[in-house]
């Protein structure tokens, strides 16, 4: 399938606006290459390609807001490819047609199907010249010709149900078996509508109750359309086109903060409704950690100084690795622990609201690496340059409100995660230690966790582990 769809960049995202194309038609993209910058209700993010191929055309214009799952571009494995019939194993390449790997690669790059070329080399082998000739000859006819399958998308098609990533995610969320659904999409692919249609109405309700269509009138009034409503090939309510949000980099506006607030609000109310939270707190003894950090910072130029958050995050990541009940997702009515620790970091945006992008594999980073990535992540979060994976895959989120001066913060779990860690500000406190009263640095750590997955005993062990790890800061 060659449609590149608006991805879901978090459980609370319903639609996104394409604000920039990072490729142009004709570009060859690999899996993971950045394709576009998308503005969600929360922030602007770069999204990457899920497939490899040639960007054939854009299906939406810059400034268009479309729902998650809407095709926004076509990326063809080769320009000559058409979707294969669903669930029918594709034909083997003609036995006589052979091409050495470099030639196949060239053919792939040029969008030529080697199976359709008669080779002029020894034993009917396809040569570079044959491929180049075929590429030159194909031109416009290539797309119309029903070419046989090229070698790229073949292997998975036979034993996997064709579906969009969104449909798969939705199916996983709703507990629907993709195999059991007849797809109505291109090539028999299962679409998200198919998935929704397969869900009994009772279960479907919560999914659809999500945040109301936003009040268009105010926004349209305070933001006269910067771009004329475009003729997107996608049906969308007329008000959305007029709802031109600020361009990237512009000083922010109230409406953005308002939609962000709505998105957060609806997700948090879902979290509070569905997740049985329990709450714990403990006071971390930070004497050793702060002394170590202050000593380390004296030796460092300002550009590589650490902040207390870096130590707290690293200790949290290590503890999450050891207590997996805090780290993973609750989906399909069951907990799936995550082997990797992608630590979500709640970042307050300066115009209001927050996002919680992930520090990937935080448990494996050195403190310096973690600090660098934290600065990079926070900077990009505020500049609106986050990437899709950073928004979509945190396995456990930390909120550090201590900077704003509170002593403790009890977070609301970000579904489908199963725990949220909160850190208050680092204070000097009177502290009894070895029978003596002294002054030590301390901070309150809290845990909000999902009672379907863990209980106070595990949660308490997790918080205690964070404290233990912070007693040996040099080993973090």
């Amino acid at each position, binding site marked *: 399938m060659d449609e590149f769809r608006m991805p879901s960049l978090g459980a609370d995202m319903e639609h996104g606006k394409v604000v920039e194309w990072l490729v142009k038609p004709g570009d060859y993209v690999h899996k993971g290459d950045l394709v576009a910058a998308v503005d969600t209700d929360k922030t602007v993010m770069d999204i990457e390609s899920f497939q490899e191929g040639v960007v054939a055309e854009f299906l939406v214009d810059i400034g268009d807001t479309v729902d998650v799952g809407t095709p926004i571009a076509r990326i063809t494995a080769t320009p000559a490819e058409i979707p294969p019939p669903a669930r029918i194993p594709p034909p083997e390449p003609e036995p006589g047609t052979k091409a050495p790997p470099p030639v196949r690669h060239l053919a792939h790059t040029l969008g030529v199907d080697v199976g359709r070329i008669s080779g002029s080399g020894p034993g009917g082998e396809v040569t570079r010249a044959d491929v180049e000739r075929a590429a030159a000859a194909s031109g416009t006819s290539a797309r119309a010709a029903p070419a046989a399958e090229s070698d790229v998308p073949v292997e998975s098609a036979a034993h996997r149900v064709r579906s969009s990533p969104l449909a798969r995610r939705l199916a996983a969320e709703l507990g629907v078996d993709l195999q059991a659904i007849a797809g109505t999409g291109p090539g028999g692919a299962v679409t998200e509508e198919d998935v929704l249609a397969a869900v009994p109405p009772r279960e479907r309700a919560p999914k659809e109750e999500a945040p109301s269509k936003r009040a268009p009138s105010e926004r349209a009034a305070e933001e006269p359309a910067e771009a004329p409503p475009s003729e997107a090939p996608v049906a969308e309510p007329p008000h959305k086109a007029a709802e031109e949000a600020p361009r990237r980099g512009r000083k922010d506006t109230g409406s953005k903060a308002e939609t962000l607030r709505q998105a957060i609000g609806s997700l948090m109310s879902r979290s509070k409704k569905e997740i049985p939270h329990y709450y714990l707190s403990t006071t971390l003894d930070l004497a050793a950690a702060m002394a170590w950090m*202050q000593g380390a*910072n004296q030796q460092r130029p*300002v550009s590589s*100084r650490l902040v207390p*958050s870096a130590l707290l995050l690293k200790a949290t990541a290590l503890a999450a690795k050891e207590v997996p009940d805090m780290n993973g997702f609750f989906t399909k009515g069951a907990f799936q622990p995550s082997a990797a620790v992608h630590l979500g970091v709640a970042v307050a945006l*300066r115009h209001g609201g927050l996002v919680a992008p992930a520090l990937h594999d935080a448990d494996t980073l050195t403190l310096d690496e973690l600090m660098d990535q934290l*600065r990079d992540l926070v900077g990009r979060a505020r500049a609106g340059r986050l990437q899709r994976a950073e928004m979509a895959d945190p396995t456990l989120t930390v909120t550090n409100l201590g900077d704003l001066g509170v002593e403790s913060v009890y977070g609301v779990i970000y579904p489908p995660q199963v725990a949220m860690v909160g850190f208050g500000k680092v204070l000097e406190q009177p502290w009894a230690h070895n029978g003596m009263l002294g002054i030590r640095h301390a901070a309150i750590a809290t845990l909000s966790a999902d009672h379907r997955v863990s209980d106070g005993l595990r949660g308490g062990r997790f918080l205690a582990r964070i404290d233990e790890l912070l007693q040996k800061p040099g080993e973090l």
Partner: protein
Amino acid sequence: MNEQDARQAVGAALGKVAPDVEPGDLNGGARLRQDLELDSLDFLRLVEVIAESTGVDIPEADYPAVATVDGLVTYVAGHG
């Protein structure tokens, strides 16, 4: 460095780190963390920008002295 240069440097650095802060909010008594809502990473970045633009490196031990706009201006003027 005289105080006026220092104030200018501090204003420019704050504009870089917290572009949404209105210049009007930059009265001398404004506390960087509480009033201007700089978090620890913003604050670190501010210290870094000031070191780049003025050559004044503020060690961590002196952070309490630079908690307000005026404190920072005085510090930069005194060390630049």
